[in-house]
């Protein structure tokens, strides 16, 4: 029972970060029909941002979020405005292949600049795990979890309460109708891509103290990220949250009760199953 509670908790903690990466991918898909294969590289850039912030400027990795999230937001908008926008009329497969090229370009530029060495971030605090109710929780992961919840909550408020948020949801539901209602769809798309990139980058910053950093880490993350958004239904934000938590828990329980070597495989099998039998996601909210 204690093992169960322990692995459930660590699954939920990791799952919240998966969810955050997944939300970025899913809002971009919802608004622009782009499956962004370079999303994992955006996470990787966030991780390296936290690393360089700490090693060059003695910046606390978690505080560097305040710097990197806006930088990634602007960077994402520029990528959309100057690179991706002209590809969209070519169709979904063209944008998929274009972002595949972008992904390879970013990952290999990073490999070239920073080499393939594995790096870690050492925090001056939180060496000892906290133990509420006898469950051991790593401090960096706990901080990341709380911040991820706060960001997701803020995003939720933004999407449901503000005009721009409503415009994003409207465009996601029906682009033509939104256009007819006077929504500046192009501006919405630019902002959404910036938002998706910022979410990926922020998740990267938060994950950096808990994971190994290397330039091709994006490959692993992007595949997990697809699992998350497909589980929840492509285009659905609540779906991505549920999918992220589900994947985190399934992996963590699978590692304990099925096989630790095949824990990643469980996610992929689940992914194929959902793609084949419930293409709109487990909760039937996607499209």
């Amino acid at each position: 029972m204690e093992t169960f509670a322990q692995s459930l908790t660590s699954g939920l903690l990791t799952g919240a970060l998966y969810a955050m990466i997944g939300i970025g991918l899913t809002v971009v898909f919802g608004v622009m029909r782009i499956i962004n294969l370079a999303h994992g590289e955006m996470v990787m850039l966030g991780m390296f941002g936290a690393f360089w912030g700490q090693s060059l400027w003695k910046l606390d990795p978690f505080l560097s979020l305040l710097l990197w999230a806006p930088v990634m937001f602007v960077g994402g908008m520029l990528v959309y405005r100057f690179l991706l926008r002209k590809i969209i009329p070519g169709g979904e497969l063209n944008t998929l292949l274009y972002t595949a090229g972008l992904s390879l370009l970013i990952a290999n530029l990073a490999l070239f600049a920073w080499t393939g060495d594995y790096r870690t971030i050492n925090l001056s605090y939180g060496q000892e795990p906290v133990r509420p109710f006898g469950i051991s929780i790593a401090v960096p992961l706990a901080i990341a979890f709380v911040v991820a919840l706060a960001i997701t909550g803020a995003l939720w408020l933004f999407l449901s309460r503000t005009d721009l948020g409503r415009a994003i949801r409207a465009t996601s539901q029906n682009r033509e109708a939104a256009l007819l209602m006077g929504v500046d769809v192009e501006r919405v798309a630019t902002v959404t891509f910036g938002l998706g990139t910022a979410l990926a980058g922020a998740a990267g910053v938060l994950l950096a103290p808990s994971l190994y950093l290397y330039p091709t880490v994006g490959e692993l993350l992007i595949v997990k990220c697809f699992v998350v958004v497909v589980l929840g239904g492509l285009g659905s934000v609540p779906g991505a949250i549920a999918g992220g938590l589900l994947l985190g828990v399934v992996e963590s329980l699978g590692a304990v009760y099925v096989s630790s070597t095949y824990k990643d495989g469980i996610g992929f099998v689940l992914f194929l199953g959902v793609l084949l039998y419930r293409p709109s996601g487990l909760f039937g909210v996607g499209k």
Partner: protein
Amino acid sequence: MTRRLAPWVAGVVALAALPAIVPNSFYLHVAIMILMWTLLGSAWNLLGGFAGQVSFGHAALFGIGAYVTMILFLKAGLAPWWGIPLGGLAAALVSLPIGLVCFRLRGPYFSLATLAVAEIVKLVALNWETVTNGSVGFLITTFPPVRFFGLAVDWESKLPFYALAALLALGGLAATAWLQTSRLGAYLIAIRENEEAAEAVGIDTVRAKVLTFALSAFLAGLGGGFYAAYFRYVDPDAVLNINLSMEMVFIAMVGGLGTVAGPLVGAVFLTTVGESVRERFQVGHLIFYGLFMMLAIRYMPEGIWGRARRLLAALRARVLGHVAA
């Protein structure tokens, strides 16, 4: 007929002459890589270019070919010229269930499913240690003396590999040329342009796609088998890497989708750039793959060969027009 055969004859002559011209073994290595990637680009192009089914999972088929060739050689002593075709066959066999499952999905969803399948195959290779040796993989230290039609093969020279690669690349191009004129090829183009319409006129789209996938897998498996024999080294990171799938996609796409010569042009262009960068900097040779892919989609979606062919046709029309006038 002579006009159709002429480029093939010229190609074979050029391939036969090349080893005599190249100044050192690095250039021969580049030539071998170009030929291997021509085969792999052609393999992907059958499915991606003609049928419009973008697979991100071809690394799995390549890897299966590589592992089968390697294991047959090390454990059964079977020489690579038996192992390579058997590796291709194994990849084709494995492609059948993958195809039957993944082809239920369309467009980008098919691509994502193949990506997941490739990751599953990689996980199996990493963890099924009794067969695959896990993350350690296999290494051939010395080739036993082998005779090929009575001739002793010199494994230390690159020449036998060059000959084998040339044969395989020609095979890939020939398979594409055959598909282009076959009934199956016509079905595939119909599927690519409009799958519902293709189904409505009575094409068994699933059958056509699965057959093409098997042919494509066979060629990718041959490429993997060749890789195993040439580099004498196989491990999950080397032969089941997702980047291999991407390189196949990029070579076919930059060269020209759905054409016979496209993968050859793409391989000549990208592999030359890639191997030169790899020779000079060790890492990051894929920077240019990504960059050229983005440029191609933006400015030249028909690929280098597609664009060149169109320009040639326009030129010919103008010249002929002048003659007629």
